C-alpha cells in the first residue's frame, strides 16, 4: 500500500490558541481513516490545513510524496484532494447538475472559443460533463430532481449532492467533514455503505465524525484528537480500549488525584 496522504507534526496557531498541535497520520489508498475528538479538538482546523484553506504554522502535508504544505487550495485540489464541508457549502442558486459539474472543472476539454462558436469539441465536452454528473448522482443514490436549484432540496439530498460533487473531482484523497451530521438512522446506514463503495473505487477516505457507532463500524484506523493534540491512533478496538480516549470523551473520574489535575492546569 502506498501512502496517499502523509501528515507529519501538523501545527496551526491562531493568536495564542494552538488549534492543531502536532498531528501526524498516514492515509493509504483504499483505506478509511476517521479523525475523531470532542468539539473544538481541532479536527476541522486540521482539514483546513490539509486542503490549504489555513496555512499551517508548522509541520508538513505530503500528497503522494509531494510536499503540498501551505499551497493554494485550488492547487492542492488539482493535486488530487477533494473535500466536503462541515456546513454544506453548495452553490444554492445553481441546479443540482451544475453543482456536481463544479467537481469536474479540472477535466477541461473546452476553451472560451469553443464555447463562443459551439464547436463539436464543446458539445462533446458538455455531454461528458452532463453524463458524469448523472453518473455520480446515481452513485451516491440521489433520487430527487436534477434540473432544479439546489436551495429547494431537503437537507439529506443536499448532503448527497455535496458528496457527488466531491466524487466528480475523481481525487485520490477524499476528506469528508462530518458527513453524518443531521442524518437519521436509516440515512446513516446508507452513508456507511456509500463510504465503503467510495473506498472500493481506490480512494483514500478521511472522515471527521462525531457519531462513535458509525466511526467504529466503518473505519479501518482512527485518529483521536483533543485540544489540538493527537492522543491516540489505532484500530477501532485499540482506540476503544485506550484510557486517554475514554477520559477525553467521558471525563476523568471524580476521585482522581487532585495533584495531577493541578499540575495539568499549570501546563495549560
Amino acid at each position, binding site marked *: 500500500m502506498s501512502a496517499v496522504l502523509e501528515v507529519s507534526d501538523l501545527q496551526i496557531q491562531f493568536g495564542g490558541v494552538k488549534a492543531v498541535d502536532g498531528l501526524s497520520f498516514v492515509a493509504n489508498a483504499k483505506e478509511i481513516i476517521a479523525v475523531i475528538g470532542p468539539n473544538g479538538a481541532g479536527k476541522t482546523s486540521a482539514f483546513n490545513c490539509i486542503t490549504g484553506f489555513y496555512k499551517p504554522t508548522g509541520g508538513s502535508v505530503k500528497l503522494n510524496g509531494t510536499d503540498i504544505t501551505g499551497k493554494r487550495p485550488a492547487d492542492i485540489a488539482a493535486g488530487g484532494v*477533494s473535500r466536503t464541508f462541515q456546513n454544506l457549502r453548495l452553490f444554492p442558486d445553481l441546479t443540482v447538475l451544475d453543482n456536481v459539474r463544479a467537481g469536474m472543472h479540472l477535466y477541461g476539454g473546452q476553451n472560451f472559443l469553443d464555447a463562443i462558436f459551439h464547436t463539436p469539441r464543446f458539445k462533446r465536452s458538455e455531454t461528458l460533463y452532463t453524463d458524469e454528473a448523472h453518473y455520480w448522482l446515481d452513485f451516491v443514490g440521489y433520487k430527487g430532481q*436534477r434540473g432544479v436549484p439546489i436551495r429547494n432540496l431537503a437537507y439529506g439530498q443536499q448532503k448527497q449532492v455535496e458528496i457527488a460533487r466531491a466524487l466528480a473531482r475523481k481525487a485520490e484523497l477524499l476528506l469528508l467533514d462530518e458527513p453524518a451530521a443531521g442524518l437519521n438512522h436509516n440515512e446513516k446506514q446508507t452513508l456507511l455503505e456509500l463510504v465503503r463503495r467510495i473506498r472500493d473505487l481506490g480512494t483514500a477516505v478521511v472522515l471527521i465524525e462525531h457519531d462513535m457507532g458509525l466511526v467504529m463500524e466503518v473505519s479501518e484506523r482512527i485518529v483521536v484528537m483533543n485540544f489540538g493534540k493527537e492522543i491516540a491512533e489505532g484500530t477501532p478496538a485499540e482506540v476503544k480500549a485506550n484510557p486517554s480516549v475514554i477520559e477525553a470523551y467521558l471525563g476523568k473520574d471524580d476521585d482522581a488525584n487532585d495533584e495531577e489535575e493541578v499540575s495539568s492546569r499549570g501546563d495549560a
Partner: protein
Amino acid sequence: MSENTDTTFAPPPPRTKNTLGARLTAIFENKYIGWPALGIALLMPFITASAYSLNVMTTALIFVVLAAGLNIVVGYCGLLDLGYIAFLAVGAYTAGILSKMFELPVLFTLPAVIVMTVLAGLLIGAPTLRLRSDYLAIVTLGFGEITRITANNLQLTGGPSGIFGIPSFLTIGELDLQQPVIFYYITVVMVAGLVLAAARLGKSRLGRAWRYVKEDEDAAEAMGIHTYKVKLLAYIFGAVWGGFAGILFASHLSAVSPQSFLFLQSALVLMAVVLGGMGNMKGVVIGALVISLLPELLRDFAEYRYLVFGVLLVVVMVFRPQGFWPARGYEPERKMTAVDAAVAEGRSR
C-alpha cells in the same frame, strides 16, 4: 439518504403546466428567442428611419454591448464594478487616436483595441481583484474616475475637448459604411454577435466557474478552481466587450471626449444589468434598451423627464427587485432511453 425517510420526499413543486404563466415562461425561455429580437432590430429602420431615430437606436445598441460586458463581470461573476465605463473609454480612445493618427478606417483598429482593453483589464483587475465586495466596488470606482481624469489631462487624448474628426468606420470603393442606416445595420450585426457570444460564455465551463465563484468562493476553490484567475478572466472579458462598444461609440459619434465617461454612465450600465436581471443575458438586453430608450420616450415631459425616469426605476425595483427577467436556475431533467440506462448500469469508472 434512502427512500423511506423524511428528508427525501420534499421535491419542489413541479411547475404546473397550462397556466398562462407557464406558457409565457415556455415562450420566453425558448432558446430561439433571440431570433425574433434580431428580426425586430433589423426591421426597425423600415418603421422609423429619421436621422434622430437611427441615432437613438444605434446609441441604444451600443449601450446593450456595454450592459452585456458588465453582465459578465457583475451578473456572472458577482464582482461589483462601479468603474466599468473606463473600458469604454479605453476602447473609444484607442480607436479614435489610432484611426486619426494613421488615417485608418476605425474598423482596422479592432486588434489594437482588443489588446489595449485586455491590458486595461489586467492592469485594473490584477490589483483590485484581491479585494472582496465593498472594497472592490470602491476601488473600481476610483479606477473609473482615474481613467477619465487622465484622459482629461493628457495631450494624446486631446484634453477636455477630446478627439474629433475620427475617420469613417470603413469605406469600400464609393460606399461609405458610415451612413446612418448602414452603420445601424453594422451595429445590429456586431451587437447580436457579442450578445450571443456573452450568453454562450455564460453557459460554458468558464461561465459555470464564474457562477461558482459568485455563489461560494471557498467551495469553488476546493473544487480546484483558481478563483483569482477566473475573476481576472471575467474582468478581461468584460473589458473586451467594453472595447467593442468603444469602437462603435467612437465611430458613431466620430468624436470622443471625457464627458462621455462620467461615473453616471457606469451607474447607468450597472442599472441596466440590475434592472434587466443579473446573470441573464436576455434580461440584460431588455434592461439596457429600457435604460437607454426610456429617457428618449419621455421627452414629452420636457425638463421633468429624468425625474419621471428616476421614479419609474424606483417603482420597478420596489415591485421587482430581482429585475425584469432574472436568471432561472432550471435545466432539463435526464432523458434516458433504455439503451442509455443499460450503458449507465454497466459502466465502470
